[in-house]
C-alpha cells in the first residue's frame, strides 16, 4: 500500500516537466529538490541522532568542490565526480564524527561550526587549488553515456529535473531504510537516553560516526547536483546562510520525520521565490529569522507532525514516517 502510494507520488512528480512549461518554475523545483537532499541529510543528524550540525554547508561545499576540481582540473567525467563528491565529504564526516565521539550538544555544534569555518577559509585562501574567491567556472554539464549511441545530454532543465528527482528519491529511500532499520532505532535510543542505550549494548560512537558519514555524503550529493546545475563553484557554497536554510527547513518541516525535511525544503524554497518580487533579500532573511522563532513557539515539532496530529487517524501511526512524501509543487 505504502509502496504503491510512493510510486504514484514519484510518477506524478516525474511528469512535471511534461506539463510545466515555465522554465523558471522548473528552476524553483530543481532548487527545492537539491535542498530536499540537503535537508534530508541534516535531518539524519539533527532529527534522528539528535546532534545539530551547524557546519553542514561544509559537506555540501566539499561535494561541490570535489566534483568541480575533479571534472575541471583533472578532466574526469561528472560520474567519476559523483564518486568524489560522495567520498570526500564522507571522509570529512568520518573525521568530524570521530572527533565528536566524546562531545555532544553545544560542543558538537561548535565543532561543526569551526570545521565549516576552517574549510571556508581554506577555499578562499588556497588560490592554487581553488582559485580563491574567483571560484571555478566551466563545471561540465551532465550527460548520460549510452553504449553505442553516444551521450544523452542532461543539460537542459527538464532533463536535469529528472536527475534531481532521482537523487532526491534515492536520498529519501536511504533515509527511510536507515531510520526504520536497526541503525535508526539505535540512533533514536541514543538521542533519547544515551546511558540507557549504551547499557543495552548500543555502541554510541559507532552509530554516531555512521550517521555523520551518511549525512555528510548525502550533503555531498546535494553539492554535486548544485555544481553541475549552476556549473560554477565558488566559496559562496560554504556560506553560513546555506546551513541556516537547511536548519530552518528541517525544524519547520518536522525534525525526526521523513517527510518533514522535504516539506520544509519545498516551502522554504518556494516562499522566498514568491516573495522575491515583493521584497528585497534582506527582508526575506529577516522574515526567515522571525519565521524560525515563530515555528519554535507555535509548531515546536514542525509542520508535518502537526498535520498528522490533525488528520483523521486511520491507523495508529508509529510516529516515524507516517505522513506521505510531500508534493514539491507547493
Amino acid at each position, binding site marked *: 500500500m505504502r509502496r504503491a502510494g510512493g510510486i504514484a507520488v514519484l510518477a506524478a512528480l516525474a511528469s512535471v516537466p511534461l506539463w510545466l512549461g515555465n522554465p523558471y518554475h522548473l528552476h524553483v523545483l530543481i532548487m527545492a529538490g537539491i535542498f530536499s537532499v540537503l535537508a534530508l541529510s541534516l535531518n539524519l543528524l539533527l532529527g534522528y541522532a*539528535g546532534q*545539530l550540525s551547524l557546519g553542514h554547508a561544509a559537506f555540501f561545499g566539499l561535494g561541490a568542490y570535489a566534483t568541480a576540481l575533479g571534472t575541471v582540473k583533472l578532466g574526469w567525467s561528472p560520474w567519476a565526480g559523483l564518486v568524489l563528491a560522495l567520498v570526500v565529504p564522507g571522509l570529512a564526516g568520518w573525521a568530524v564524527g570521530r*572527533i565528536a565521539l*566524546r*562531545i*555532544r*550538544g*553545544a*560542543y558538537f*555544534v*561548535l*565543532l561543526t*561550526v*569551526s*570545521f565549516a*569555518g*576552517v574549510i571556508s*577559509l*581554506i577555499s*578562499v*585562501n588556497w588560490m592554487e587549488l581553488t582559485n580563491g574567491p574567483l571560484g571555478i567556472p566551466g563545471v561540465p554539464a551532465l550527460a548520460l553515456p549510452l553504449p553505442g549511441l553516444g551521450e544523452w545530454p542532461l543539460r537542459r532543465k527538464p532533463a536535469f529535473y529528472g536527475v534531481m528527482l532521482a537523487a532526491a528519491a534515492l536520498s529519501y529511500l536511504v533515509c527511510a531504510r536507515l531510520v526504520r532499520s536497526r541503525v535508526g532505532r539505535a540512533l533514536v535510543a541514543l538521542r533519547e537516553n544515551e546511558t540507557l542505550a549504551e547499557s543495552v549494548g548500543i555502541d554510541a560512537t559507532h552509530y554516531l560516526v555512521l550517521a555523520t558519514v551518511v549525512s555528510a555524503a548525502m550533503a555531498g550529493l546535494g553539492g554535486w547536483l548544485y555544481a553541475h546545475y549552476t556549473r560554477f563553484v565558488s566559496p559562496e557554497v560554504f556560506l*553560513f546562510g546555506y546551513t*541556516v536554510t537547511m*536548519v530552518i527547513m528541517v*525544524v519547520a518541516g518536522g525534525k525526526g520525520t521523513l517527510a518533514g525535511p522535504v516539506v520544509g525544503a519545498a516551502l522554504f524554497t518556494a516562499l522566498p521565490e514568491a516573495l522575491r518580487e515583493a521584497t*528585497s533579500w*534582506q*527582508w526575506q*532573511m*529577516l522574515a*526567515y*529569522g*522571525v*519565521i*524560525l*522563532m515563530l515555528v*519554535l*513557539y507555535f509548531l*515546536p515539532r514542525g509542520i508535518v507532525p502537526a498535520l498528522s496530529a490533525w488528520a483523521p487517524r486511520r491507523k495508529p501511526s508509529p510516529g516515524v514516517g507516517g505522513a506521505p512524501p510531500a508534493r514539491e509543487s507547493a
Partner: protein
Amino acid sequence: MDQLLQHLLNGLLLGSTYALLGIGLTLVFGLMNVVNFAHGEFYTLGAYATFAALIGAHVPFFLAIALAIALGAAAGAVTDRVLLRPLRGESIDTTMLLMIGLWIAMQNAELLVWGGVAKSVPTPFPTAPLVLGPVSVAPLRVFVFVVAAALIAGAHLLLSRTRLGRAMRATFQDRETAALMGVRIERVHTITFAFGAGLAAAAGALLGPVFLLYPSMGDLASLKAFSVVILGGLGNFGGAALGGLVLGIAEELGAGYVSSGYRDAVGFAMIVLMLLVRPAGLFARAERVG
C-alpha cells in the same frame, strides 16, 4: 625580538576585548544554559549605537559608549522577557534554535537600517602612536584595554561579592531552593541575560572605533566569543578571561608569522584542537562537561 614584543602587546590589547565578549557568552551559558548565537548581534548593536549617538545626537564620545552599553543591556532584558521567558524549561536545542533565529533577524534588520557600506566611528584620541621603547601602541587601544579590564573586574566583583551575584549563582544552581529562599528567579534570569548582552555591547562599543562597522561584524565577534568560551570551558568565568587573552595573542602571532589570510582560522583551529584534547577547557576544574 622587538617584533615579538609588539605582537604580544597587540595580542594582549585585542585579547582583552575577546575576554569581554567571552565572559558575556559564558555567563549566559553557564548560568542560564542558553547557547546564545545572537551574542555577536548585541556586539553589533553596541557598535552601531555608539556611532548613532556620536553622529546623530552629537553626544560626547565617552557618554556614547556608556549609552551603547545601556542600550545593549536593555535589548538583552527585552530579549529575555519576550523571547526566552515563554520557553523557560525547554531543551537547550530549542533555545539555541531560537537564538539562531534572533541572530538572523537582528543582523538583517541592521543591514536594512544601516545599509551594507562600512562606517567608521570618529574618536577624540590622537592617531599618532605612543612609543614605549621597542614597541608602539595607538592611544585608542590603550583606552579600550583599560575600559575592558575595568568591566571584567567589575563583572567579577558583581558576581562574587554582591547580593545580586549570589542570587544569580544560587538561582542557577537550584531554582526551586533559590525561589524558596526568596530570590525572584524570573528577575534574575532577565538580569543575567541583560548582563551578558551588555558586556557584548560594551565590546562592540569599544572595538567599533578600532575597526569598521558593518552589519555582519557580529558573526566574527560570535566566533571569537565561542572560541574563548571553548578555550576557557563553557560556563567558566576565569577561563573566559584568560581564554580571551590566549586567543588574542595566538591570533596576533598567527597573523604575524604565518599568514594574515588565516588570522580568523586561528580561532576555529583552537576550537577543534581544544575539543579534541581537552573538551572541558584549558582551565577546567572537572565539571560542566556535555
